[in-house]
């Protein structure tokens, strides 16, 4: 069953999130330059890292699906991309708030990371209309996997092109993500990353469980009409 271990995982996620939030607000010092608003950095950056890694995971599962032809991997790929798109919305919103507070504008076109992320988000947002416009379920799964692989190759290229378009005019402001942070901020940041990653994994598992359960329910309903003995208990999640 897909629900196995979900409870432990959820408890770990809640604990990690609580630890991250208390570290952010009570342990990490206020930023000398930006003040309180800098705290959103502990949410924004981990969210974006987890979302991008989630897109990569979606691509990897898509390759697995294309190679093996097992529908299970397609469902994994779908759920990874789905949750990463949701996280990406969070990234864009928190990024906007930060931009407003520290640069005075809700949207800043010359910050390459922000723009790259918007383009990546726009591409992955087309995953849904693309996927659900194809009717045949086999073909839908295959094409969605091809999309996930293509988009995976697109992400680094896009970051390169957008960075190049700006690099001469605007030097990187946040090149110091790891090296320049004092220890206490670094600790809060790392715990935040761990908490966000746990949250993502929990949500992925939850959605897979729900989809597997609804697939099983559908099969049971069908079995009520035409009983078939010896059905497997682990049903591939339906997307």
């Amino acid at each position, binding site marked *: 069953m897909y629900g196995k271990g979900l409870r432990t995982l959820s408890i770990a996620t809640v604990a990690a999130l609580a630890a991250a939030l208390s570290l952010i607000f009570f342990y990490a010092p206020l930023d000398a330059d930006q003040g309180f608003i800098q705290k959103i950095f502990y949410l924004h950056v981990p969210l974006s890292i987890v979302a991008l890694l989630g897109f990569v995971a979606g691509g990897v599962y898509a390759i697995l699906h294309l190679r093996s032809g097992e529908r299970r991997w397609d469902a994994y790929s779908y759920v990874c991309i789905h949750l990463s798109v949701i996280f990406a919305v969070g990234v864009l919103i928190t990024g906007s708030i930060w931009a407003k507070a520290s640069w005075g504008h809700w949207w800043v076109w010359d910050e390459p990371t922000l723009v790259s992320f918007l383009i990546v988000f726009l591409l992955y947002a*087309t995953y849904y209309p693309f996927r659900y416009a194809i009717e045949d379920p086999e073909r839908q799964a295959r094409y969605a996997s*091809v999309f996930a*692989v293509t988009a995976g190759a697109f992400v680094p290229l896009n970051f390169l092109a957008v960075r190049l*378009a700006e690099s001469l005019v605007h030097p990187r402001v946040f090149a110091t993500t790891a090296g320049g942070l004092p220890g206490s901020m670094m600790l809060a940041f790392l715990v935040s990353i761990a908490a966000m990653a746990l949250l993502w994994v929990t949500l992925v598992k939850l959605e897979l469980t729900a989809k597997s359960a609804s697939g099983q329910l559908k099969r049971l309903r069908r079995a009520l009409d035409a009983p078939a003995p010896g059905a497997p208990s682990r049903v591939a999640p339906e997307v």
Partner: protein
Amino acid sequence: MTPSRLAFATILAKDLRAELRTLQSLPAMALFAVTTFVIFRFGLDRTSLSGSLAAGVLWATLLFAAVLGINRLFVAEREEGGFDAIRLAPIDRTALFAAKAAALLVYLLVLELIVVPVFALFFLDSAAALPPLAAVLLLADLGLAATGTLISSMAVHSRARDLLTPLVLLPLVVPLMIAATGATEPLLTLGGPAYDRFGTWLAVLGLYDLVFLLVGYAVFDFLLED
């Protein structure tokens, strides 16, 4: 000739011959592009363009004209059973990808052969930028041909083909457009072409072409399975 090369040449020749006889894509693309220039003339209220404006108008127009052709690329295969024939034939399926991408490349080159001189005639002061621009056009066309063929071959099997191709294609070609406009902008500045970071942008275009030709080559087999 190896069987795959023969299949490639046959499909490409078939496509070009069909286009020559029916003329269902290219004239529409060219007409669309020229009309778009006229709209830009009034939309921007400029009678001559240079620099980033010129690059933006040229590439936005070429991209949207290309989408028209990309939309129709696989329609005949789908409606007349070409996909089934390819599946039945004992040939490498990637031959279809290569042939369709090559056909699209030819369409785009012919389109630009017509439309870019018109653009120069309408908006540019001199034609000095056109020879170096040809290199940018060729590299960008390769990338468009690779991604366009890939997306079109998938979208043609969906309910909303005409909607889906631009929807997925546009974000996918953003890096290509960044590089193409980046290379074109200094070429079209007032007072003769400049070559500001020209090599860097050509390298990005080449990298994009390489990546998406390889991706298309790698995944196209899965698109034809049934």
